[in-house]
């Protein structure tokens, strides 16, 4: 078994209003960060899991996202895996 750290980045689905992102964008603009074109606020979930290989680790994390961690109606997610064994 190997140990993996998996970062699950969850962001609002493209095309959906992201009121938090909009507020942060406005705040950055008011601080004169005029180069900021867009902001999305999501969340990061960091998992540590044991798996025989990276493929299985990714599959399991993907299933966790589909069943619980992300809501497919409103959110998109990306997985980043690192073997820390």
């Amino acid at each position, binding site marked *: 078994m190997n140990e993996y750290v998996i970062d699950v980045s969850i962001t609002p689905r493209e095309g*959906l209003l992201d009121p938090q992102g909009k507020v942060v964008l406005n705040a950055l603009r008011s601080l004169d960060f005029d180069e900021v074109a867009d902001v999305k606020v999501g969340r990061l979930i960091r998992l540590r899991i044991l798996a025989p290989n990276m493929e299985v680790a990714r599959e399991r994390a993907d299933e966790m996202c589909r069943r619980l961690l992300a809501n497919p109606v409103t959110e998109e997610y990306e997985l980043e895996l690192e073997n820390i064994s």
Partner: protein
Amino acid sequence: MRVAIVTFPGSNCDHDCYRAATEVLHADAKLIWHRERDLGNPDLVILPGGFSYGDYLRPGAIARFSPIMEEVVRYAKAGRPVLGICNGFHILCEAGLLPGALVRNRTLKFLGLDVFVRVENAGTMFTSAYTEGQVLRLPIAHGEGNYVADAATLEALEAEGRVVFRYVDANGEATDEANLNGSMRNIAGIINERGNVLGLMPHPERAVSALLGSTDGRGIFESILAAIQGTPLGAAIAG
């Protein structure tokens, strides 16, 4: 009539629902802890409002895996009536019993005030005591009540008369200003295809007596009672 009200850790409207059930419906109501696995064959299940599991992850996301939810899903799939209010609406969406989801209010503010909603479909078992187009004044209390769904779902909801309540102004117009949380198409409440599962963000259980400032929420409970008892509206309701 027997009513089961599920209490999740963080539910805070379960007792309001209990009062509405006992005092408006004169029902035999029971609070059921979410760890239980038996609903006790009620005539109605209510998933109350509140902040189940502190709204961690997403409102309703954890609660929908509570042990009792297996029973609630089975009950709903058998065509028995389930009413989800506020956080209970979230739980129904997360459990897949209702389509779509509810995200952060567009203002980012928690909204705790009375709003107007229009009855869009008075032909459901939850709304037969109202007339179509009737405007109700009901309290809302939520930070995440902004209803979203994909275009196909919205079209289906509209076409099938499954948008049951819509946010409107005092004149009954579904304006953008009246849509405080930013819900798609001003949607405040929807029903499933079969017509036995209703979810709504406003709190009818907080509007069942003049003492609470409005009695406009009584109709939901009266409608359910009439549907369950098969009696003419009002016949079995005192006061």
